[in-house]
């Protein structure tokens, strides 16, 4: 009798400990120990947009290196595991599976490219791996549920700004769209179409597409010329705008070229030379040469860790992502989980890293951290600001 009384509590405690232990095991997220957090990224390091991939990776690593040298965040160092997806969706899927299942990453961070990130979107959601600040400003990340969160003003929002500028300020009657025929190009293309229709009761003068990694745009140039458009909106990356401008100029056609932030990098100017002079774009964060304590830190970190890389909007793009991520990690505290990290990022409000622009979480239906934008243009071979900062309004794609 007395024996049973002795055993029961012991058994109960044992079972309790076991259950607790098991639940602790199942609850703990992958990719995190007391000493380290493993962060994954899929980037294009050798393909059609390798310039972006290499620079974004460097920008993120510059932040992580500095943070790690200072002892990490709450004692945890950040380890970045990045694979090359060559800007090809099937490869992006293989890489994502490798990162999640073999490397056991805690989060996906700065994944490059709209079509490539869209390809892994459902998979990350299924595995409950947060897709943090993908290096694509498509609007899809802002309204696809809790596992996805964007950082800056979307291509759709940016195109709304471009359309308003062309119609209201420049009083242009005929506006054409030149877009990459995939999830990336369509985001801004369709938003612009909607903006023209609903706001101004108009349509594009002509819609001209191209395929990823195309290299010749003479037929596109001919169609644009025939449409007589005053301005061509570019939903392209850095290789196409200079080549298109060149081919338009070759047939005596000189419209205003204006593109979303993806075209605003020095490579565009290096490739296009005199043909891109006057080209305009949208900036969603300051230029690498602007003043500000955060930009001083960026310049110092880049010089220290990547002295061979020129300061460019692309590495600053990665740098600000990583800085924002680190801020979220700081806020999440010592007891870090995927959920607590997402909550911490969502708690960011009016946070200025030191460059005059503030990050604020946009809400559950608009999961971005900033909606600031301004216009820039190529002047004497340099991207130069052409407007003050403004807060973008919502521009739907429908």
């Amino acid at each position: 009798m007395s024996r049973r009384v002795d055993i029961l509590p012991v058994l109960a405690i044992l079972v309790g400990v076991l259950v607790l232990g098991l639940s602790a095991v199942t609850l703990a997220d992958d990719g995190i120990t007391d000493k380290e957090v493993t962060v994954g990224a899929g980037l294009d390091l050798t393909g059609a947009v390798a310039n972006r991939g290499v620079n974004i990776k460097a920008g993120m690593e510059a932040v992580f290196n500095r943070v790690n040298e200072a002892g990490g965040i709450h004692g945890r160092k950040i380890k970045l595991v990045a694979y090359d997806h060559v800007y090809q969706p099937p490869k992006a899927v293989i890489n994502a599976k490798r990162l999640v299942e073999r490397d056991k990453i805690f989060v996906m961070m700065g994944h490059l490219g709209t079509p490539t990130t869209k390809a892994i979107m459902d998979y990350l959601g299924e595995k409950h791996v947060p897709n943090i600040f993908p290096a694509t400003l498509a609007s899809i990340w802002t309204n696809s549920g809790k596992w996805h969160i964007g950082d800056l003003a979307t291509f759709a929002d940016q195109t709304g700004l471009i359309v308003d500028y062309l119609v209201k300020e420049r009083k242009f009657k005929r506006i054409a769209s030149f877009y990459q025929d995939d999830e990336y190009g369509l985001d801004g293309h369709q938003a612009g179409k909607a903006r023209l229709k609903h706001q101004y009761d108009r349509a594009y003068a002509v819609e001209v597409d191209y395929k990823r990694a195309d290299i010749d745009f003479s037929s596109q140039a001919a169609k644009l010329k025939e449409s007589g458009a005053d301005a061509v909106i570019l939903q392209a990356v850095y290789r196409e705008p200079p080549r298109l401008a060149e081919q338009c100029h070759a047939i005596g056609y000189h419209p205003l070229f204006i593109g979303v932030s993806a075209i605003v990098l020095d490579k565009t100017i290096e490739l296009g030379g005199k043909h891109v002079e006057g080209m305009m774009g949208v900036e969603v964060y300051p230029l690498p040469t602007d003043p500000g304590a955060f930009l001083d830190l960026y310049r110092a970190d880049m010089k220290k860790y990547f002295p061979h890389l020129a300061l460019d909007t692309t590495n600053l793009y990665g740098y600000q992502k990583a800085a924002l991520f680190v801020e979220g990690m700081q806020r999440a505290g010592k007891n870090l989980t995927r959920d607590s990290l997402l909550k911490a990022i969502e708690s960011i409000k009016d946070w200025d890293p030191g460059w005059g622009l503030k990050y604020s979480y946009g809400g559950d239906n608009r999961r971005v951290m900033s909606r600031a934008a301004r216009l820039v243009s190529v002047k004497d071979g340099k991207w130069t600001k052409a407007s003050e900062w403004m807060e973008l309004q919502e521009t739907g794609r429908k």
Partner: protein
Amino acid sequence: MVEILTSQVVSGLATGCVYALIALGFVLIFKATDVVNFAQGEFVMASGFISYTLLIRFGLSYWVVLLVTIVVSGVMGVILERVVVRPIMDAPIFSIVIATIGASTVLRSSAGIVYGYDVLPLPTIFSKDPIRMGVLSFTVMDAGVIGSSLVIMMALYLFFTRTKTGMAMRATAQSQTAARLMGVSVKGIFSLTWAISAAIGGVAGVLIAPIIYLDPNLGVIGVKAFAGAILGGFGSIPGAIVGGMLLGILENLSGYFFNAGIKQVSTYILLIVVLVVRPSGLFGAVAVKRV
């Protein structure tokens, strides 16, 4: 409208000429040695980087660069033949094909390791300013590319018909045994063929790299040229030239009349149609098998 169409045709012809040059490289090697060299596109890419280095890093003048690039490309062809292809000449044809694919990967990755995967602009002597002649509208660059390609093709024609070495190469292509009996060094001819093919690829590289920018993936243009060679009838030299040119023009026109998607597949649709109607290609010899 007419002006835009003619400009489409001329710029398509310029791209087509470059396809034709690369296609020639494929065909010459195939005729002489029965090998399909899948590294042909990488000869184009490599020559782009060679001329970039000479032009930008060493600051040499354009014509010197052109000459040196052609010679270095030729040497590269010989090395590839000696090191990769000749030791396995008796292996099944698939092994040789895989070996050339391997060589192309090695060349591409080497360029990536040395120069990075970034896109680089390459200056050219031909300006991109427009020229107008009646309904014809084109750029100096288009004219330059077409002109240079025609000169190369003419030179090749003269070489094959007027020189002893050229005739020896044709003889080897016809029958290696007979050529050997006539005192032709077949091995020497093999090396020379690879040298010439790579050198033509070199010219193509110098012509195309400034137009479409330079990067280690430039060699994929070889796939299009290969399609051009098949279109013309693989093994036929005029076929390679006409096939390449047709492809360039077709691409431009289909892009103009349809969209980017159709432009991308138009090459292969035409290829399939031609092969269904005429399996040996436009200029290919019809193989007759007597049973």
